[in-house]
């Protein structure tokens, strides 16, 4: 390893220690803000892990997030916590595989619509079940998980999402996905099982999103479908990843941090118009920074021709 790599590794390790100790020196407000930041960092990074290389825009984030939250709501009091997380992982992966196998053969535009519909479908199914079977719309989440626990779990998940993303980028799967993103027909003729590669990555990405939902559930104490399956989350994650630049592993995080702060500020200061402002921010990002902050930075620092564009809807 070169000296700069060792320095970067040391800095990352030190930063991680500082972050891990945050609950001991931050007050409740900053802890809650840190939880939001970590939540969106993991969500946007997991989203970019799939959508960056494949250029499929998924709006299913909230579907997986909500399924994770509901897994905790249903099983949290019955089973041990690690087991609940394990089941959430399994459900997220299974759902992603079923969705992936049935939709990833579609073109990008159909995929966007389908994933948006999926979130709504799952929400309506949960409402139907709760109204007709359990006869209550909401559930209380009584589990022995503190805010500190939530924070540490999210931090561990963030480390995991970057580690796995880094490993995938260096694997044959990562190379296959870059080729698929460039030209799917060429990918097939290079011997790549395109469907398998896409479904695998979609499932890995979905597991992280499901786990965020599961870990976040105890924060609410009371959840109902409109909270757990809030479609705004799907859009926020897309905006964050595009602002940062989804073609690099650490790009979405670069977008997630400032936008989480912005959205917190907006919803506190302008609660009624925040959605409108978020929409305008989205438009500005897509027009002004098609390759995200990371893409702009690469262009300026290397003076190279246009880097790969941000995820676009394939037609």
């Amino acid at each position, binding site marked *: 390893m070169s000296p700069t790599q060792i320095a970067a590794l040391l800095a990352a390790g030190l930063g991680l220690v500082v972050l891990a100790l945050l609950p001991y020196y931050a007050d409740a407000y900053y802890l809650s803000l840190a939880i939001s930041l970590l939540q969106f960092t993991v969500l946007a990074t997991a989203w970019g892990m799939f959508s960056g290389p494949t250029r499929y825009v998924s709006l299913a984030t909230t579907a997986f997030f909500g399924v994770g939250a509901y897994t905790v709501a249903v099983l949290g009091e019955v089973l041990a916590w690690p087991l609940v997380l394990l089941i959430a992982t399994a459900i997220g992966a299974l759902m992603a595989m079923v969705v992936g196998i049935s939709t990833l053969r579609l073109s990008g535009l159909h995929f966007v619509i389908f994933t948006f519909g999926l979130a709504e479908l799952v929400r309506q199914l949960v409402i139907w079940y709760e109204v007709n079977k359990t006869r209550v719309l909401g559930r209380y989440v009584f589990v022995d998980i503190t805010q500190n626990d939530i924070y540490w779990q999210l931090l561990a998940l963030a480390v995991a999402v970057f580690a796995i993303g880094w490993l995938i980028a260096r694997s*044959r799967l990562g190379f*296959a996905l870059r*080729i698929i993103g460039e030209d799917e*027909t060429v990918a*097939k*003729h*290079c*011997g*790549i099982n395109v469907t398998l590669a896409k479904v695998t990555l979609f499932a890995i990405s979905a597991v992280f999103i499901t786990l965020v939902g599961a870990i976040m559930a105890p924060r609410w104490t009371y959840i109902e479908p409109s909270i757990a399956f809030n479609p705004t989350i799907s859009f926020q994650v897309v905006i964050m990843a595009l602002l940062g630049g989804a073609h690099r592993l650490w790009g979405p995080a670069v977008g997630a941090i400032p936008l989480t702060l912005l959205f917190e500020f907006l919803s506190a200061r302008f609660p009624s118009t925040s959605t409108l402002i978020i929409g305008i921010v989205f438009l500005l990002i897509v027009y002004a920074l098609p390759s995200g902050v990371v893409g702009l930075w690469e262009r300026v620092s290397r003076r190279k021709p246009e880097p790969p564009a941000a995820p676009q809807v394939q037609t």
Partner: protein
Amino acid sequence: MTAASSAPVLEVSGLTRAFGGLVAVNAVDLAVQPGQIVGLLGPNGSGKTTALNLISGVLRPDSGSIRFAGQAIEGMPAHRIARLGLARTFQLVRVLNGMSCAENVKAGLAFHRPPLSRGEIDESVDRLLRRVGLANRAGLPASGLTYIDCKRLELARALALKPRLLLLDEWLAGLNPSELLIGIELIRSLKDEGLSVLLVEHVMDAIRSLCDRCVVMNSGRRIAEGRPDEVLADPAVIEAYLGVSTDA
């Protein structure tokens, strides 16, 4: 030559594919023997590219059989056909513009079964780039290549699959006369290495100098088959290309 290697590399019979009411490929038979270059000719819209797409697995045939290296491949997904050793280039050249030249070639090397080692891949990238005349371009982005160099790069990627059969879809089209000579020599040298080639081509000089046999298609049907000089003199072929003579 052993009995096994004298069997055709590719044997297509009764190949048919329709799009709605249009039968793009209609009961076409063709065969490529080991080490042969076979030309697939015909006017625009006669179904040549569709035939290649059926063979390489982009499209599924409605009926007919395709045997490649003794195995039935009709309806098999493209990636499995590629792994069996059938490589192709595209009519509209397809290089991976966001990647370097070396990565473009690596795309053809990274998914072999069984997988190659990292050292074998790096060594093969250099060898293949040199083979097509792109030595010293390894690190350059593919987006900066000229048209002929894009074609060379696409060929290197196809050769990276270690194919037994290469499908070339108008690989020589759009080259200037001096580039054309280089291109023809390159294809001939592949044949000398024992590779079998099925090429769709309009450049008559190339067809005459390269092809062992030719199959001519018109409106989805095979209308002639034989040595290049024979089929190019065939009245039915001349009529397909030039229309019916209206001499009195």
